[in-house]
């Protein structure tokens, strides 16, 4: 125990003595948490719309008005021909082109049927896909309205209309920030924790002090714990800073208990830091360990369900996501923050993450050798 205390004292002194570390640890995540959630928004707005209206009728104008007044589109271009409309897309003036054929109104009235054409610039696939979907939704609505107008006697309505009304549980306003901020916070804590842990033991290798440790009677587990605990404390402090920002800036108050988050985070950090230390025992230079840790955390973050739901991934990717500690914490964060889950509700997550923690740390202790072969 005393050896551990001496080790901890030394590590904390070294960390606190470096003013750059403290700045990096707290200021960078703060800025990221203030900037990223505004950018990481799934809702697409400001889609630039081009219209080619060959009809120039009351119905066609009404349709365009309806699309623009939805708030998602900005009417940027009004061309005379399809070719001109396409040019506007090529020049990146518009994202989506809506072509209204001649006699749109006539065929709509007479034949009760009309065709519209949508062309989308799919370089930004999300924008094109969602934009087209929005337009289709609006046209569908428009269609309903027109029908309602014509069918003065509703009981003759030959086509029954099924309308779906939905309510979004746990996040009634579908506020993306409530959804993204906890996830981004997990990502930041993970990156900071694992990168710092990964570079730490290697640093002792680089400056040569590891020899002095190896020739002393320090036990391997003591040494690893001595490295683990300081970063564990720091990562928890970063998490706290993040939760405070989430509350003050974004007004995100967890429905569940803060204690549940901390309880899970404590175990989670042991796993992530253990992974960092494991990399550290393999690497020979800080550069190596940083690059590998960067690579791994990038995959972890992208496959964590933060940006894209795990459920929509292919089977093989789902397996990888299950082997990814980050995905568990993001899920737990959202469960506790939005749904108010308790420790009992997340017991499987806890068991899984405990497994990761034991696995990575045991491996790190085993791979750290005081004597070379």
């Amino acid at each position, binding site marked *: 125990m005393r050896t551990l205390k001496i080790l901890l004292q030394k590590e904390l002194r070294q960390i606190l003595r470096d003013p750059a570390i403290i700045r990096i640890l707290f200021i960078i995540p703060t800025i990221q948490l203030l900037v990223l959630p505004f950018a990481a928004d799934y809702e697409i707005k400001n889609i630039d719309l081009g219209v080619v209206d060959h009809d120039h009728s009351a119905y066609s104008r009404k349709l365009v008005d309806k699309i623009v007044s939805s708030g998602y589109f900005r009417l940027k271009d009004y061309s005379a021909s399809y070719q001109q409309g396409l040019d506007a897309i090529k020049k990146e003036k518009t994202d989506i082109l809506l072509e209204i054929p001649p006699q749109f109104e006539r065929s709509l009235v007479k034949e009760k049927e009309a065709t519209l054409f949508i062309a989308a610039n799919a370089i930004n696939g999300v924008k094109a896909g969602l934009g087209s979907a929005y337009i289709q939704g609006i046209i569908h609505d428009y269609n309903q309205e027109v029908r309602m107008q014509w069918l003065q006697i509703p009981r003759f309505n030959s086509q029954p209309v099924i309308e779906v009304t939905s309510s979004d549980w746990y996040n009634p306003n579908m506020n993306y920030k409530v959804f993204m901020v906890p996830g981004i916070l997990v990502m930041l804590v993970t990156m900071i924790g694992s990168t710092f842990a990964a570079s730490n033991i290697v640093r002792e290798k680089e400056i040569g002090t590891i020899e002095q440790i190896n020739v002393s009677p320090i036990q391997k587990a003591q040494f690893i714990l001595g490295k683990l605990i300081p970063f564990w404390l720091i990562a928890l402090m970063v998490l706290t800073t993040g939760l405070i920002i989430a509350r003050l800036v974004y007004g995100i108050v967890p429905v569940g208990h803060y204690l549940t988050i901390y309880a899970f985070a404590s175990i989670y950090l042991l796993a992530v830091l253990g992974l960092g230390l494991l990399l550290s025992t393999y690497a020979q230079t800080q550069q190596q360990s940083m690059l590998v840790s960067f690579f791994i955390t990038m995959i972890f973050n992208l496959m964590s369900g933060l940006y894209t739901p795990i459920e929509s991934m292919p089977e093989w990717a789902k397996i990888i996501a299950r082997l990814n500690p980050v995905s568990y914490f993001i899920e737990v964060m959202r469960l506790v923050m939005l749904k108010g889950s308790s420790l009992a509700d997340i017991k499987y997550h806890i068991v899984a993450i405990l497994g990761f923690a034991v696995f990575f740390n045991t491996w790190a202790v085993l791979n750290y050798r005081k004597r070379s*072969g």
Partner: protein
Amino acid sequence: MQTEKVITAKNLSKKFGHFVAVDHISFEVNKGEIFGFLGANGAGKTTAMRMLCGLSMPSSGEATVAGFDVYKQTEQIKKNIGYMSQRFSLYEDLTIGENIRFYAGIYGLTDKQIREKSDSLLKELNMQEHKKTLVRELPLGWKQKLAFSIAIVHDPAIVFLDEPTGGVDPITRREFWNLIYEASSNGITVFVTTHYMDEAEYCHRVSIMVDGRIDALGAPASLKKDHAAKTMDEVFLQLARKAVRSE
């Protein structure tokens, strides 16, 4: 001189692939002795020393340090030795006092012992006013002397020094050797590698390694006599010229 042996090595060897870094070396070191381990760069001195300290696994042969086996009892060996590596090994971002506390602490000294030790150590090195100075800010000579004092802060039976005076000026080297003599007179056995031949003269006995083998072993005076040389320099040159291996 007492005949209690604190280090024994018998046909100790270390191979890295086909390369034989240390080739069946055998020697004994007596308690309280200053044992010089000489050799050109790449002769295998550091490798041999690392095996004795439990940092490197021997390929074959036997050795004991402080009565413990280098294969199985490395952790007991580690409690009984001090080690100062070729590379400077104090924490530059800690103060002198903090370095002393750390190294004394990991060898299990109590707070009271650490206080007493650091007071006497700083006094001996004339660094009392610098207890709170960061090691990074010290001149190299000071750092080396400090590193040595810290290597023996837990009063080990043996201290291993790997080229401790590399890059240090002659005056500081002299002061450094005074520290070594003092440790030796306190009963600490000193095992030191060097390639400064004037330092070899300070040792009670020296061994000279050439290409991983020990080619000569004895007191400096008798080695000089055997090789009909006036200085250790000449002895060394006679032996080292036979070396096939270069850096």
